[in-house]
């Protein structure tokens, strides 16, 4: 995200000074948010009987994270969150990888065959309209197993951004490149391995960045449908005061953090796997 904003500024003079002042600006914004939260928390603490249900102080949430008090089953709040996060994130990851694989394969197929593209494209658009998260209970009843339905839903949600982005990537290859490969006498396999597939990488990573938080959301939402572990399940339990309400706040912050982290992780992955793309990023400001 930051990289993009930076790159947007590259067209303008004075980029150096902006780059340098980037961090403090963001810091001030974050500090402002914390300030607003704390002010609201003070207000809530004075007017409400149970302020921790509505808006606890941030330090209270931090204290809950580090306190050794057992909230349930001889586990501290942090342990509860981490143990449940492991099962949720593992399924989200499995579904994510499956969705990525299928999405990329479908995009490849659509790019290889005109007929496949014509059949699949309208349905690819329709998938976006289907409330898959709303359908989570149905998937649960079809698969019958909460772990499997987590994987399936995470996969479906991951699938669309990847497929659509990679298809866009295949289509964005300039005709000049096709002509060049044609003049080299390249066959279809060579055309794809040398030109088309490398050209999709930036699009592929764009898709990854969109779908990684989605996969996690999906996995957590499926958790809320059934007991038996997982972050979502703990979320609804703590919301109903089956355990300390601070577990709820911890989970909320944890989810928010993981959502953003997964997004940045994909950016890091891109930077590591495709370092040679950097110069293109700066240049595509046309």
């Amino acid at each position: 995200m930051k990289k993009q904003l930076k790159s947007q500024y590259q067209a303008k003079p004075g980029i150096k000074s902006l780059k340098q002042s980037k961090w403090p600006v963001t810091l001030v914004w974050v500090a402002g948010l914390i300030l607003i939260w704390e002010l609201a928390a003070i207000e809530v603490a004075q007017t409400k009987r149970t302020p921790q249900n509505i808006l606890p102080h941030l330090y209270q949430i931090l204290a809950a994270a580090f306190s050794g008090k057992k909230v349930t089953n001889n586990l501290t709040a942090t342990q509860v969150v981490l143990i449940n996060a492991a099962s949720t994130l593992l399924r989200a990851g499995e579904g994510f990888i499956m969705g990525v694989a299928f999405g990329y394969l479908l995009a490849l197929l659509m790019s290889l065959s005109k007929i496949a593209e014509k059949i699949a494209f309208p349905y690819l658009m329709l998938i976006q309209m289907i409330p898959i998260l709303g359908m989570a209970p149905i998937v649960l009843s079809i698969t019958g197993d909460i772990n499997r339905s987590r994987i399936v839903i995470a996969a479906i949600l991951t699938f669309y951004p990847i497929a659509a982005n990679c298809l866009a990537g295949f289509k964005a290859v300039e005709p000049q490149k096709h002509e060049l490969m044609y003049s080299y006498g390249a066959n279809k396999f060579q055309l794809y391995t040398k030109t088309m597939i490398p050209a999709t990488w930036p699009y592929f990573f764009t898709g990854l960045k969109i779908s990684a938080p989605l996969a996690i959301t999906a996995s957590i939402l499926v958790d809320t449908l059934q007991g038996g572990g997982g972050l979502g399940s703990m979320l609804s339990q703590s919301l109903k005061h089956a355990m300390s309400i601070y577990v709820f706040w911890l989970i909320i912050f944890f989810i928010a953090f993981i959502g953003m982290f997964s997004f940045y992780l994909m950016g890091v992955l891109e930077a590591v796997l495709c370092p040679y793309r950097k110069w293109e990023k700066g240049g595509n400001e046309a």
Partner: protein
Amino acid sequence: MNKYRLESASAAGLETCFDAKQPVQARLAVAPESPSVKAMENKNPASESLTMLNKPAPAEQLLSAQPPLAAARPAEPAASRPESRSGAAAAQFKLKAPSDWWVKASTFVYPLLFGILIYVLWQSGLLHKMLGTDDFTLPAPSRIVRIMQDNSGKIWANVITTLQAALSGLLFGSLLGFLTAFLAMRFPRWGSGGLTLVSAFNAIPIIALAPVITNWTKDVSSDAATRSMVAKILVVTLVCMASMSVNAYRGLTELKPFSLDLMHSYGSGRGVEFIKLRLPNCVPYIFIALKVGVPTSVISAMIAEYFAEFITGVGRQIRENIVLAQYPTAWAYIMTACLMGIVLYAILISVETVALRHRR
């Protein structure tokens, strides 16, 4: 091959020709000081930099969460940008190559055949065997339609509440997002930090937002229906804000080369510059944002209903009916939700076609 390209170039209009013939000037016009362009010059001949110019910017589409539609149909979104024109040229080049009525017809025929195949499989029960499920969990389409007809009054009432939440959230979110973009454009130094923050919020799952906001809005009204509606609208607002702010910011700042200089040479003030240059330039980007926003708003309204106090809305009905093991009824609501999304999207596309008709 060459013939097709010439055809497509002329069809795509002047912009493309300009790009193709004078890559160097175009490049200079765009980013005179961009270090990466200089790096490019060392590396590659001019033809490569043309390539670069023509390339849609994948990394930037990222926040729009919408590159799919935007880029998959290249002619559509950024009609004002040169590279998307050449994208249109490529699309036309592909369409024109076999030049046959069958090519046009098959665009509709193949998906239709596929749809009919799925329908037949579903109705005849073969799909159930393939998925290993039964007629109760996954009722036949005819049964779902019958249930929808029987309960049309109740379904309609729920559709109305969901639409209220989704559309007003979309409206507020888009306005706020546009305001953020405007501030980021006007005060780049501090505003861009805010934009970063807004996009970071975008990565927060709705699941985390919905229960918190339900908690916060307990005092808004003594009426449970009102306060859950407020909570839902707030959730949708937050979710829709991010894509609008990022896209609108792009629309307000990524202007055509020299256009800003032209405005300066006319001696226009900031207000005129905004209304005559930046705002019209922004319109296609607003539609990109809305194309993300419309489906997201419906879905996030439904998720927000899951956590809301008051039991109403299409999303909540899906859940309630599944809790009661009324799968056929739940399917009727799922179908309703899909229809809602599709109808809203179709409305948006037609509005866009009308609004952008002079830009094609």
